[in-house]
């Protein structure tokens, strides 16, 4: 490794000023201080929020009407049937079966013919598990108090609804 020779070092020393006497403790004390600009920012934000809050609270405040205009949302459009109800929709094949896995003697299952293209099953009350297989829609109706709504496309070639081992649609 190359070192600076003494002549160059001696010349460079001519540029030197006395080294300030700084203590490490001073550095640590300053480093622990919260930087002033952050304090200023925080104060500015708090002040701005306070002014905005005051303006909003004033009776007949244009700020309030402006914010309400900005945040106002139109009421949600009416949703389709059972949109919020858990369920499943499947496009049926030529021979399609909706199979409720348990006999469910106390349950209510309503079957409705629709103009739609999909077979839909919704748990109107209670809960159930749904899964779709090839030409099959399986409903695990473990909740004996659940009621279901089965919607079958009028144009579907053949759709059966079976509860346990009993076919309820078309009626046997």
């Amino acid at each position, binding site marked *: 490794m190359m070192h600076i020779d003494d002549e160059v070092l001696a010349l460079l020393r*001519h540029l030197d000023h006395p080294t*300030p006497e700084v203590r*490490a403790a001073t550095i640590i004390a*300053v*480093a622990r201080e919260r930087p002033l600009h952050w304090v200023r920012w925080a104060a500015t934000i708090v002040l701005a929020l306070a002014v905005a809050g005051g303006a909003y609270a004033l009776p007949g405040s244009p700020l309030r009407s402006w914010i309400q205009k900005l945040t106002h949302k139109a009421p949600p459009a009416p949703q389709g049937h059972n949109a919020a109800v858990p369920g499943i929709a499947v496009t049926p094949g030529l021979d399609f079966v909706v199979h409720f896995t348990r006999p469910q003697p106390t349950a209510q299952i309503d079957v409705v013919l629709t103009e739609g293209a999909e077979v839909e099953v919704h748990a109107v009350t209670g809960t159930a598990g749904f899964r779709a297989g090839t030409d099959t829609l399986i409903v695990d109706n473990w909740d004996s108090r659940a009621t279901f709504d089965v919607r079958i496309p009028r144009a579907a070639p053949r759709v059966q609804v079976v509860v346990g081992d009993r076919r309820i649609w078309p009626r046997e």
Partner: protein
Amino acid sequence: MALFHEHFERIYRYLDRLTGEAALAADLAQEAFIRLYRRGALPDAPAAWLISVAMNLLRNAKSTERRRRRLLTPARSEQARADPAPAPDQGMADEDTRRRVRAALDGVPERERRLLLLCAEGYSYREMAAALHLNEASVGVLLARAKRAFRDTYEDTHDAH
């Protein structure tokens, strides 16, 4: 603490020689240590880290012309006052040498000047390369060029007298 004692003076002296502004050098050297403290963890190569930060601070200070005087210590001015005043002739000769050294240093290209001053403070090739974003293998060549340029320029100013 040990790190401060080991590195503060060399960073200050490097910045002082580079800028010719003792107060600025003192402030920036202190600021570099403040940054190190606030960082929380020690960097892998503290010497290279500190000098890199100091150089970044210098660049910022130069570009914005905003100089921090936060930690100007009374001790510095007291010490400066306490230095014995040189005899008039000696003072003039020193001032002349100082001017010529400054002119010689200013005549060295920026990158080589920084290398020369870092080398004078005993930084390793690796630390210099890290601080100046250079390939470590090229440090030696650049340093040799820097020394030659400094000497040549200094001798030119000597001949001119």
